[in-house]
C-alpha cells in the first residue's frame, strides 16, 4: 500500500488521466462508430464505400502508429499541439472502427425480411433503423460492444509513450523513485481489474434491462 500512499502526487493524476482518455475517447468512438456502422449498411453506395475504406484503413493500422501520427506528424501539419487532445483523438478514431464493425454485426442479426416489411408499410430508411432494426440490434450488440470498450480501456496505456499522463506511465515513474516494479505493476493491474469489473456490471445491468421474451 505504501507504493500508492507515498506517491499519491503521481497516482492520482495518472488515474485521472486514464479516466479522461477513456471518457472522451469513448464519446468519439461511440458517436463516430455508430455513424460509420450505419454508413456501412446504408442504401447509399458512396456512404458504404467511405465507411468501409475508413474501417479497413484505420483498423489495419497499429494503435501505436496512430499515436505516432497524431503526436509527431499532425502537430506540424495543423499547428495544433495539445498532446492529450491529439492522443484522445488518435485512440478515439481507432476504436471507432471496432465500434462500427460491432454495430454492423448487430444490425446484420436482424433478419432482412423485417426491414423489407417495414419498407413495405411505407417507413423511410431512418424510421426502419430507429423503430425496427436498432432496438433489436442494440440488444444483441451489448456483449461484443462491452468487449470492445474493455479492450479500449486497456489500450489507453499505449498513450503513456506519447506524453499523456496515465496509469501506463506508473512503471517509469515508480522505478525512478526506487519502488519495486513488480508491486507497482500488480497495483496497476488491480486498478484495471476494478475498472473492468465496473464495466462488466454495467453490461449485466443493460442486458437485464433490455431483455425481452422471445
Amino acid at each position: 500500500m505504501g507504493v500508492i500512499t507515498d506517491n499519491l502526487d503521481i497516482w492520482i493524476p495518472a488515474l485521472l488521466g486514464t479516466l479522461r482518455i477513456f471518457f472522451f475517447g469513448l464519446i468519439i468512438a461511440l458517436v463516430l462508430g455508430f455513424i460509420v456502422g450505419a454508413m456501412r449498411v446504408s442504401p447509399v453506395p458512396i456512404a458504404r464505400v467511405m465507411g468501409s475504406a475508413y474501417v479497413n484503413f484505420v483498423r489495419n493500422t497499429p494503435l501505436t502508429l496512430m499515436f505516432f501520427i497524431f503526436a509527431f506528424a499532425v502537430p506540424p501539419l495543423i499547428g495544433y499541439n495539445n498532446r492529450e487532445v491529439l492522443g484522445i483523438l488518435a485512440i478515439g478514431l481507432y476504436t471507432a472502427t471496432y465500434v462500427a464493425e460491432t454495430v454492423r454485426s448487430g444490425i446484420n442479426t436482424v433478419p432482412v425480411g423485417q426491414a423489407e416489411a417495414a419498407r413495405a408499410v411505407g417507413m423511410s430508411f431512418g424510421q426502419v433503423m430507429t423503430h425496427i432494426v436498432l432496438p433489436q440490434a442494440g440488444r444483441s450488440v451489448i456483449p461484443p460492444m462491452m468487449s470492445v470498450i474493455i479492450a479500449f480501456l486497456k489500450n489507453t496505456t499505449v498513450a503513456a509513450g506519447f506524453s499523456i499522463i496515465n496509469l501506463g506511465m506508473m512503471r517509469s515513474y515508480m522505478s525512478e523513485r526506487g519502488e519495486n516494479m513488480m508491486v507497482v505493476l500488480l497495483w496497476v493491474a488491480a486498478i484495471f481489474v476494478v475498472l473492468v469489473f465496473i464495466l462488466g456490471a454495467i453490461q449485466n445491468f443493460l442486458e437485464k434491462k433490455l431483455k425481452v421474451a422471445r
Partner: protein
Amino acid sequence: MKKRRITSLAAVGAAAALVLAGCAGGEDDAPVDVADDVQLEGSSTFDAIQERGSIVIGVKEDQPGLGYLDAATGERSGFDVDIARWMAAELGFEEDQIEYSAIPSANREQELVNGNIDMYVGTYSITDDRKEQIDFAGPYAITGQGLLVGADNDSIQSDSDLSADVTVCSATGSTPIQNIRENYDAEPVEYDTYSQCIAQLEDGSVDAVTTDELILLGYAAQSPDTLQIVGEPFSEELYGIGIPQGDDAFRDFLNDALENGGDTWTEIWDNNLGATGIEGEQPAVDRY
C-alpha cells in the same frame, strides 16, 4: 554571440572526434590491457561470470557519446561503454567475451535483481532508493540536470526561465522530468527515448530538452548548428556501476579498479567527451 561561436566550434570538433572515435572502434582502442588469472574470492557474481565464460553488461544504446549502438556497423561506442569495457578487462574479459544487453532505465533494478545482467553501466544515478534493491560501485562520473535548447533560442538561459509557457521534454518518468513536474511551472512533455525529444525540439514542438548534462552534451555535439546547452547544471547526479545487491567482494573489486586506474579514466573521457571542451575529472569512489 562570440561565445556561442566558440562553443559551436568546440561542438563541431566534438562531432568530428565522435565520428573518428566511431571509425577507430573495436578492440584496438581498448584503453587497458585485459588482466590474466583474475582471482576473486567470495563473489557469487564473478563465479557466475566465470562459469558462463562471458560477462553480461547492461548498457544504453541510444545516447551518442555515452552509450550508443551504430545500427549500420553494429559498433558500440561512448563513455559508459568504454567504462564497461575497462571493467570487463580488469575482470579478465576481452571485447568478444562481453555480451551487451540494452536495457531501458525503468527495468534496470529488476534485471539486476533477477540476475539477467552482471552489471549495468549506463547513466545510472546512485540513489538511496535504488540501494535498497541493488548496489553501486563508483561513482565514475558526476553530472547534473541541464538544459538543451535550439541554437536560436535566446529566451531560455537557465532553469529560472522555465515559465508556464515553456514546454520541456525528457524521458517518461525520469528524475529530471519529475523535478520539472514538481518544482517548475513549465509544461512537462514525456517520450520513451531522448531521441524523440530531440526530434520534437528540432521541429519546434518543445522549447527545451532536459536531462543529465552529460547526455545532452552528446546530442549537442551531434547537431552543433541547431542545438545548444544553456545554464549551469541545477542538480547533482553521481553515475555508478549497478551490481547485484550484497556482493561486496565484486563491488570492492570494481572500486579498486576505478581507483587504481591511473590515467585510464581521463583517457576514456578525452576519447568520448573531451572534445566538447568540458574538463572531466574522475570523482572519488564512495565505499558506502
